[in-house]
């Protein structure tokens, strides 16, 4: 345990960032956090918190001081046994990280991802046509969930059909980064069954010959990684690649439906479609937080952090820091939104972001071509998780173009 902070200059925040009420609507809390100071002491968990863009960005880019190998959740792997075998990508530092990362960079490169476009487009058009005929539908389940759940497992090469396991696994993994609250406990209760299914699907034999999975195993054939490591990298894809895009696309649809003038701006200028996604990720970040652990004593903005201490980075708070963004609480699809930290930054910055961007672009484009107005019919309901933010239901009505 870290000693109580005796230094009276360090702002102390008593509220619990993982309180269910705060998770449901975190923005006021984030403001409090940013305004309290560049580095705050989160008394509830006795660790450090960062809410300002500059500090979050700097921390993400200093892996030598703020490492990932002690876990990127609240649990310190040096002291507690991880709930599952640690990721060889997310939960490693260089040089091991670099080895896995360079393989994933190849597998998920812009050129590799471009090849998926036409398959994605066909699937998007089919799904969108079907909902438009209904006029009213749930944009969370019928679009944001339906589309990635169809195309992403296909892109990985998953042959199994029970795809709800994937969403369940993502939910478990992202809850597991948080403290032992009710969300954590509920996820741990279903973890054994779901993990077993996932691990089974990461085997070479369970994957099609085409797809990201097979390409990862091809690197095992080259001797660059072991068979077991290849399976672990497939697991990374299945953990990080579905829940996140479901939430991201849901956040985009909700933001557009709640801001009809932005939908009209987009209709008039469809070339903004990729920027819409970046602005969404900034405005309503699907991955809210990640932790790092200090590798040495370090001073940040005049505050001394000890060695082996946990630091909680509020990506979402950084993405609305008024020091970095003008009118940060406005959803403005014309702003230059690149530079947000919703995909992280630095060596662990999301390796799957080109896939996520393509999914969002293709789905929104299919919708844009066919829909004149997109409006909420009642209040969306939020989906609770210790790390991710998303929408369980987004009731909307559309009129055809």
């Amino acid at each position: 345990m870290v000693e109580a902070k005796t230094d009276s200059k360090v702002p102390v925040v008593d509220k619990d960032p993982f309180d269910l009420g705060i998770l449901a609507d975190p923005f006021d809390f984030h403001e409090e956090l940013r305004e309290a100071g560049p580095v705050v002491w989160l008394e509830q968990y006795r660790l450090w918190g960062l809410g300002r863009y500059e500090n979050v960005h700097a921390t993400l880019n200093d892996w030598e001081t703020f490492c990932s190998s002690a876990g990127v959740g609240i649990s310190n792997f040096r002291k507690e046994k991880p709930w599952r075998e640690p990721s060889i990508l997310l939960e490693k530092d260089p040089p091991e990280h670099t080895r896995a990362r360079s393989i994933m960079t190849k597998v998920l490169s812009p050129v590799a991802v471009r090849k998926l476009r036409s398959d994605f487009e066909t699937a998007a058009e089919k799904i969108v046509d079907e909902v438009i005929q209904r006029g009213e539908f749930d944009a969370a389940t019928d679009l944001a969930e339906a589309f990635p759940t169809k195309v992403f497992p296909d892109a990985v090469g998953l042959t199994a059909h029970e795809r709800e396991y994937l969403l369940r696994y993502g939910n478990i993994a992202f809850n597991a980064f948080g403290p032992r609250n009710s969300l954590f406990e509920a996820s741990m209760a279903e973890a054994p069954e779901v993990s077993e299914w996932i691990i089974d699907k990461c085997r070479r034999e369970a994957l099609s010959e085409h797809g990201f999975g097979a390409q990862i195993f091809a690197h095992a054939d080259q001797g660059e990684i072991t068979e077991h490591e290849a399976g672990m990298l497939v697991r990374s894809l299945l953990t990080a690649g579905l829940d996140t895009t479901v939430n991201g696309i849901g956040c985009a649809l909700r933001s557009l439906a709640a801001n009809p003038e932005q939908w009209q701006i987009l209709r008039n200028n469809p070339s903004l479609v990729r920027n819409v996604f970046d602005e969404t990720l900034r405005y309503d970040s699907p991955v809210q937080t990640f932790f790092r652990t200090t590798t040495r004593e370090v001073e940040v903005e005049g505050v001394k952090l000890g060695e082996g201490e946990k630091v909680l980075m509020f990506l979402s708070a950084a993405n609305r820091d008024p020091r970095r963004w003008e009118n940060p609480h406005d959803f403005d699809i014309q702003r230059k939104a690149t530079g947000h930290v919703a995909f992280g930054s630095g060596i662990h910055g999301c390796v799957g972001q080109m896939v996520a961007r393509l999914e969002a672009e293709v789905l929104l484009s299919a919708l844009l071509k066919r829909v004149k107005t997109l409006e909420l019919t009642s209040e969306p309901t939020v989906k609770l998780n210790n790390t991710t933010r998303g929408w369980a239901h987004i009731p909307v009505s559309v009129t055809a173009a």
Partner: protein
Amino acid sequence: MPSITYVHPNGERQTVEVKSGTSVMQAAMAEGISGIVAECGGSAMCATCHVYVDPEFVEHVPDVQEIEDEMLECAASERRESSRLSCQLVVSDEMDGLVVHLPETQV
């Protein structure tokens, strides 16, 4: 503070002063220099921050690392000997005066 000059395909030059430790991409973004997209924000994942280092400086910049090398293959404009991802090019005092040429297109 070291200075960097960006040369646009039409020959126009823009020179900026940057703090050591900043990447050539970040400096361009901060100054609003067009011609660098940097969609991924510097995670070496998008190849839209491609630049050509001026021949005079090729010797003075650190070597291309494995991941950057991989990503340069994905750049939209032709890859040359002098090609770099500007997000991976971190400015040091020794690089003062660096000149980089912007490619025709990034996407």
